[in-house]
C-alpha cells in the first residue's frame, strides 16, 4: 500500500536509556516510513513509553542516534521535538475542555489582527478548513468537553498536524473508545496515511493493532524482539513474542464464541431491584449467586461502571435497593457494604490506592480491626501484608514500599489483596484490567477465578468483549441505562454482544 521509500522518515539507531542501574531501553533500532502506520506493542515495563518519551523530547539524555529524513537530530525538549515535526497524543488527553474546538486547534498559535487581538473569524475559518481536510465532523465553536471522546482525540491529532507534525505518536488511542468510535478513529488514521503522515500506534489491544497497522514492532525487556508486517502475523504470535511464552486459549480472546453454562441453581447472594441512577441506570434489576461470575457488558458510558459502584455503596441510587442475603444494604454507605463482605475493584488505580502510603497500610485498610486489632504496629501488620502479597503474586512483595511505586498490574493486585483479608461475599469488578498488559491481565483474572471457586459471587463489568466472554458464566448487556439482553446457557460471541450494546 505504501510505496517503498529509500530513506525512512524516522530512524532510531542503537537508542538506549538507563534509569539508575536499570536499562529501560537497550540498543533499539527502529525505522518508520512516511505514510506508514506502525504498531508498537509490549508488556508494561517493556520500554514502549520510554521510547516514545525519547521521541517526544522528554529524555534528551539518551544514548544512540535519532535521524529524521536521514539527518541526525537532537530532541532536546518537547518543544524541540514539536519543531522537528513529532507530535504525541497522550492517553490522558491534554486538550482544554472549557475552550472550543477551534481554540484548541490553535492553542498557543492563535491568529491575531493588526492590533494584536485574536482574529476569531480567521481562527474558526482555519479550524473549519483543517477539520474538513481531515473529514472530522464537528462544529468549531463547540466546547471540547462537550464532544465525545473520539472527537477530542481527533482534535488533538488535528492540532498536532496543524503545527506541522509529520510523525504522530498515538498512545493507547482506543482504550476508552467504543467500537463505533474506534471505527471513526481508524478512518481518520487511514486518511492521514494517504497524506504521507507516519503514525506510531501504541496499544494493548492487539486486535486493533493488527487491523490498522502496516507493520508491528514488539518490545520486550527494553529490546526489540522483532518487527514484522501486520498481514503476515496473528494475535497469538504477537503475544508469544511479547511474553516469551504462549498463553492459555481462554485468556487470548474468543473470535469464535463461548458456550455459557446453564443458569446456576444456587440462590442469589446479591440482588438489585429497580436501581435508578441519573445518567447511568434507568431501572435495573439483577442478581448474582455465590460461585457465579456475572458479566456486565456495555460500551463505555452505557452505565455499567456506575452500576457497579452503586452496588458497592459508593453511589447512592435515586431509587431502588440492593440486598445482600435478603437484607438491604445501606445505600451510599461503603462502610456497610465492606463490613458485610461486598468488595469493589475499580478501573482507576488512582482512585483505589493511597499512593503515598506504604503497601501494607493499603492492604490492611479494608479489614483493619480483623487484621490489626486495636493497637496498630508495623511489626504486626507487615508480615500479614507480606503473606497476602505473595499470595496474589505482587512483585516485589515488599509491604514497606510506597504503593505508588508499583506498576499498574501490581497495584491492582494490591487492591485485590486487601479484600482477601476478610470475608468476601461479593466481588465487584469495574474494568479491572484496563490498561494492563496481557500477562498482568491473566494474573489478576486468575485471582478472581480463585475467589469465585471459593464461593464469592463475582460481577465483572467491562467494555472489552474478550474479557467478559472469557470469564463470565452469565452475561447481561447494558445499553443506555437498561439491560437489553441476558445470555445464559447458550453460545454467545463478540458480534452478538455488540448487537445488543
Amino acid at each position, binding site marked *: 500500500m505504501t510505496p517503498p521509500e529509500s530513506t525512512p522518515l524516522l530512524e532510531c539507531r542503537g537508542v538506549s536509556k538507563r*534509569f*539508575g*542501574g*536499570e536499562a*529501560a531501553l537497550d540498543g533499539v533500532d527502529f525505522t518508520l516510513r512516511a505514510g506508514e502506520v506502525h504498531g508498537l506493542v509490549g508488556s*508494561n*515495563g517493556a*520500554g*514502549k*513509553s*520510554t521510547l516514545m518519551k525519547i521521541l517526544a523530547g522528554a529524555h534528551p539524555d539518551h544514548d544512540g542516534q535519532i535521524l529524521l529524513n536521514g539527518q541526525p537530530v537532537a530532541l532536546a525538549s518537547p518543544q524541540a521535538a514539536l519543531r522537528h515535526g513529532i507530535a504525541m497524543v*497522550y*492517553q490522558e488527553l491534554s486538550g482544554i475542555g472549557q475552550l472550543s474546538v477551534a481554540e484548541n486547534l490553535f492553542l498557543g498559535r492563535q491568529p491575531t489582527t493588526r492590533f494584536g487581538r485574536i482574529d476569531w473569524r480567521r481562527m474558526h475559518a482555519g479550524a473549519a478548513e483543517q477539520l474538513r481536510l481531515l473529514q472530522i465532523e464537528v462544529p468549531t465553536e463547540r466546547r471540547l468537553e462537550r464532544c465525545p471522546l473520539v472527537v477530542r482525540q481527533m482534535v488533538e491529532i488535528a492540532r498536532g498536524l496543524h503545527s506541522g507534525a509529520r510523525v504522530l505518536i498515538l*498512545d*493507547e488511542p482506543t482504550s476508552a473508545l467504543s467500537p463505533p468510535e474506534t471505527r471513526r478513529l481508524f478512518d481518520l488514521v487511514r486518511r492521514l496515511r494517504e497524506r504521507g503522515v507516519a503514525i506510531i500506534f*501504541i496499544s494493548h489491544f492487539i486486535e486493533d493493532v493488527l487491523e490498522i497497522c502496516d507493520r508491528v514492532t514488539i518490545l520486550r525487556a527494553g529490546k526489540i524482539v522483532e518487527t514484522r508486517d501486520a498481514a503476515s502475523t496473528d494475535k497469538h504470535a504477537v503475544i508469544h513474542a511479547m511474553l516469551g511464552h504462549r498463553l492459555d486459549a481462554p485468556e487470548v480472546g474468543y473470535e469464535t464464541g463461548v458456550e455459557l453454562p446453564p443458569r446456576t441453581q444456587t440462590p442469589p447472594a446479591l440482588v438489585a431491584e429497580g436501581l435508578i441512577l441519573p445518567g447511568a441506570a434507568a431501572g435495573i434489576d439483577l442478581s448474582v449467586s455465590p460461585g457465579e461470575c456475572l458479566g456486565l457488558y456495555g460500551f463505555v458510558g452505557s452505565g455499567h461502571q456506575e452500576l457497579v459502584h452503586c452496588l*458497592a455503596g*459508593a453511589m447512592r441510587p435515586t431509587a431502588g435497593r440492593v440486598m445482600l442475603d435478603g437484607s438491604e444494604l445501606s445505600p451510599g*454507605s*461503603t*462502610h456497610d*457494604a*465492606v*463490613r458485610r463482605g461486598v468488595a*469493589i475493584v*475499580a478501573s482507576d488505580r*488512582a*482512585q*483505589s*490506592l*493511597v*499512593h*503515598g*502510603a506504604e503497601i501494607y*497500610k*493499603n492492604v490492611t*485498610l*479494608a479489614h*483493619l*480491626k480483623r487484621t*490489626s486489632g*486495636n*493497637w*496498630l*504496629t508495623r511489626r504486626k501488620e507487615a508480615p500479614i501484608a507480606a503473606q497476602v502479597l505473595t499470595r496474589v503474586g505482587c512483585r516485589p512483595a515488599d509491604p*514497606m514500599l510506597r504503593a*505508588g*511505586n*508499583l*506498576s*499498574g498490574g501490581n497495584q491492582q493486585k494490591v487492591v485485590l489483596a*486487601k479484600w482477601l483479608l476478610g470475608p468476601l461475599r461479593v466481588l465487584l469488578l469495574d474494568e479491572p484490567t484496563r*490498561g494492563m498488559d496481557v500477562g498482568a491481565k491473566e494474573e489478576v483474572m486468575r485471582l478472581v477465578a480463585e475467589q469465585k471457586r471459593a464461593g464469592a459471587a463475582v460481577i465483572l463489568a467491562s467494555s472489552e468483549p474478550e474479557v467478559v466472554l472469557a470469564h463470565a458464566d452469565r452475561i447481561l448487556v447494558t445499553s443506555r441505562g437498561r439491560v437489553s439482553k441476558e445470555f445464559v446457557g447458550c453460545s454467545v460471541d463478540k458480534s452478538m454482544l455488540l448487537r445488543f450494546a
Partner: protein
Amino acid sequence: MTDPAPHSTAKDTLFRRLFGRVEAQDVAPIVSLALLILFFGVATGGAFFKPATLVQTLKQGSVLAIVSVGLTYVLLCAEIDLAVGMVALWTACLCGWMFELPFAAGPKGAGDAAGWAVAVVLVIPLVSGVLLGLASGVLTVWSQLPSFIITLAMMNIADGMSRWLTKSEKFNVPTVLKTIGNRGIDLTDRIQIPYSALLAAVVFLVGHVVLQHTRFGRYVYMTGGNREAARLAGVRTGLIVIACLAIGAFTAGLGGLVNAGRLNSVSLDQNADLLLSAVACVVLGGTSLFGGSGGMGRTVIGVLTFSVLKVGLNQVLWINDLARPLLMGLVLLLALVVNGLLSKKR
C-alpha cells in the same frame, strides 16, 4: 501509560539500611532547626544558650504546640481549619465571662470560686469549642464545600460571638489557668519546666499515639492520602473529617485557655496571629498541606523551629524592632521552600 518509578539502586539500599526509612523530608526540618539554633547562638554571642532562653522558648511555644496538635489532624485529612484562632479566643472569653458570674468568682473575679465552679468554668467553654468544630465538620461534609470556606465563616462567627459576649471588656480567669500558664516545676534556681510545656507534652503524646497506633489514626492518614480510595475500602471518611475538625477545635480551645492563663486575663486582642503561626508550625515540620503525610513528630520540630526563631530574633539585639516580623517571615519562607524542595526529591 508511564513506566513505574525506577527500582532502587545499590546506593539507595545502603542508605536505607543505615538510616531506616528516613526520607529527606524527615531530615530537612531537623537540619533547619539545628542551623537556626547555631545561627542564634553565634548572633547573640552565646546568650542564646542560657537556661532562661530555653524556659522562655518552652513557654512561648506551649500554646502553639497544643493548637498545632489538633491542626495536624485537620491537615492530615486534607482539610483546613481557619477558625482555630477565633475558637481559641471564644473559649477563653466564655471561660472568663463565666468566671465572673456570681456562681463562680463574681465580678472582676475577685471572689473565691469553689472547685466545682472552676471545673464548670473550664469544661463548658471547651465543650462549646468542640461543638463549633463539630459544626464546621458536619457542614463541610454535608455541603461538600471546601473546609476553607466553612471554617472561614466559622472564624467570623466565633470572632463575633466573642465580641458580643465580652463587649470588649477584659475578664479575669481562674487561678489554675494562671498557674499553668506561668509557673512550672523548678528544677534549679534558673531552670524551670513550665506546666504549660508539660501539658503540651501530654497533648503531643496522646496525639501521637492515637495517630500512629489506633485505627482512627490510620483512617485519618488514609482519608487524607486518597479520600476516594479510603471510601471504597469502607472507611467512613465523612466521620473522620468531622472528628478531625472537632479535635482541631478542642486543642484550639485548650490553647486559648492556657494562653489566657499566661496573660493573666482574657481580652479580645489575644490569639490574633494564632492561626497562621499554627499552620506555619505544622507545615514547617513537614506535614503536607494536601493531606496524607506528616505527623506529630514533625509538628514538634515545626513548633520548636518557630519558637526558636521568635525567641532568637527577640534576643538578637542588633535587629531593629520593626524588622523582626519581616525577618520572621523571610526565614519562614526560606525554611518552607527548602523543605519543599527536599521533599520533592523522594
